[in-house]
């Protein structure tokens, strides 16, 4: 489960749990990028560097019985919910010990037992699923809610429109506890928000569906935590959808295979680096006097050991047996 710490403030020792997590995610992603360059990871690899505070903050409010879905930029979510970096890395390596047995790869991380109902490769395609899952949770009379993460690029897509409308409609009867988390990292691949729509206040697009919304500084873990706990509670209690636009930034290229970044300036990236969520957490923790540099270093080392171990585990894991090729197509070909 996600929430290891209580409260939403970065002014106490338990907050170090978040720090460990957020650092671990970053190091994990960097390790994955290296492995990609070494040819150990194939296909597409989209890492989360720069956006860690969003998943870390929101999933802190995640409870047993809740569900979540996101697109292909899904490693952080899987790391947090599965609490199994080895299996996540093994999946990226395409190994039989991977989270989905090596069948899905980076874009399709699932850990259904812990509520992670998937990473998806088709922009927008998972959003309707999330809305249906939310309906089912209430139909089944649970108090679970669904986190649906989507990007700033996805909001212009057909699936978003139809799904958000259903969420608003079903939410009127309290049958749609969907929390939309719009990760506005300013770009869909190389297309900035301004080049994708004439109406750039993306959160306000939820108005069309009768869904209330707010913005949060997605680089500031403390702000995200506060927002996450508050709105999660609200969605849980009302059974109505709600949307948060998290303003964030992708500090790395869109995919690990991309090298050209003609669409943004180095300067812009540099400026955002100053608001790197990890740096922000560190500063807050230091300012609050909770830790010193040395302790932060120790935590980073711990995180590094976890990631190194994940890489070693993935590397040493066997490929899936060839018999897995034909399993999991239908129920009667269960693996």
């Amino acid at each position: 489960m996600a929430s290891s710490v209580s409260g939403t403030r970065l002014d106490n020792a338990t907050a170090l749990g978040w720090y460990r997590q957020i650092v671990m995610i970053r190091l994990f992603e960097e390790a994955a990028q290296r492995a990609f360059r070494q040819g150990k990871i194939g296909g597409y690899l989209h890492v989360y560097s720069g956006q860690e505070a969003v998943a870390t903050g929101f999933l802190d409010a995640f409870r047993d019985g809740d569900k979540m879905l996101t697109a292909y930029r899904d490693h952080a979510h899987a790391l947090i919910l599965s609490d199994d970096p080895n299996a996540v890395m093994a999946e990226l390596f395409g190994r039989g010990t991977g989270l989905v047995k090596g069948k899905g790869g980076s874009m399709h991380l699932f850990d259904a037992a812990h509520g992670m109902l998937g990473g998806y490769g088709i922009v927008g395609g998972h959003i309707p699923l999330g809305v249906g899952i939310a309906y089912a949770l209430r139909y089944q009379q649970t108090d679970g809610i669904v986190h649906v993460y989507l990007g700033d690029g996805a909001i212009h897509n057909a699936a978003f429109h139809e799904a958000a409308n259903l969420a608003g409609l079903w939410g009127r009867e309290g049958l749609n506890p969907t929390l939309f988390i719009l990760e506005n990292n300013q770009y869909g691949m190389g297309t900035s928000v301004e080049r994708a729509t004439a109406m750039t206040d993306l959160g306000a697009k939820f108005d069309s569906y009768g869904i209330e919304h707010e913005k949060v500084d997605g680089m500031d873990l403390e702000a995200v935590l506060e927002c996450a706990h508050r709105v999660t509670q609200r969605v849980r209690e009302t059974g109505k959808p709600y949307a948060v636009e998290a303003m964030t930034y992708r500090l790395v290229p869109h995919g690990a295979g991309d090298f050209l970044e003609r669409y943004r300036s180095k300067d812009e990236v540099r400026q955002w680096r100053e608001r790197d969520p990890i740096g922000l957490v560190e500063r807050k923790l230091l300012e609050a006097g909770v830790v010193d540099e040395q302790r932060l270093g120790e935590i980073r080392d711990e995180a590094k050991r976890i990631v190194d171990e994940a890489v070693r585990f993935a590397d040493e894991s066997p490929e899936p047996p060839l018999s897995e090729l034909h399993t999991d197509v239908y129920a009667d070909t269960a693996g």
Partner: protein
Amino acid sequence: MPVMTYREALRTAMAEEMERDETVVQLGEDIGVYGGTHLVTDGLLDRFGPKRVIDTPIAEGGFTGAAIGMAMMGLKPVVEMMTWNFSFLAADQIIQNAAKLRYFSGGQVSVPLVIRGPNGGGVQLSAQHTHSLEGFYGHFPGLKVVSPVTPADAKGMMLSAIRDPDPVIFLEAGALYGTKGEVPAGDAKVPFGTARVAREGSDITLIAYGRQVNLLLRVAEKLAKEEQVQAEVIDLRSIRPFDEATILASVRKTNRAVVVQEQWRWYSVASEVAAIIQEQAFDDLDAPVERVSGEEVPAPYARNLEVAAFPSEQQIVDAVHRALYRGA
């Protein structure tokens, strides 16, 4: 055995399953208050309430996707595609999510979903409202695709479809909702993957599914009466999984086959059936497998053009003659 219409057979199966199993829910456009465009869902709203019979906005991709999500949670949604022509808007959800979720989740997720609605032409709905999509969906592993033509099969296959743990594309014979037939009462499931010998015969095998089966039966009677040709008629029923054995057994007996379909010829069900027969019964074949398909045009509106666009008795008789090496 009770006699009922194709429409009633479908509704009976759905109502029985809804009665038996609380996880079965219905979604679609105008299936509730309006009663269903084709009245297949008529009365279900009153009986099961709006939480289980969900009227949706016109958003095929959205509500099909939502139904997939419900299915991932263990519900068993039955989605009405008002007509299959609108399913291109849900093709991404059907093909990319429903068909593949089990696989790319490494078996963690099931999608016990039925998508049903009328398929095929014949009532002058013209180009955008006339498609036979058996091959289109049948191409994709992860989906099951069925196409019953009798009321008994409509009910029996609907029971199977709802209980199936995998996504089922249920293609109803849109032109036949009002046709009547005997339908076994109760739990008379018809399993997928079994073709039906609709008429026995020894001289030639005629193969179809959906409303073309009725056409074949008429042709077969005519051939028997006028030419002493005994045609065996096979109703495929299930497009994926597919029953090769029944077809091959028939062709091994008759040594000749004609495949008939309303859909276009290229890259279609008839292509596959012909390919299978020549692959697996090559030495038994006395003539090429003949195909009769819809004309290679978008469906026209005018009655005379529409009639000309679909397989006719004469075209089938001609194909039979070719397969029997008889002059026209």
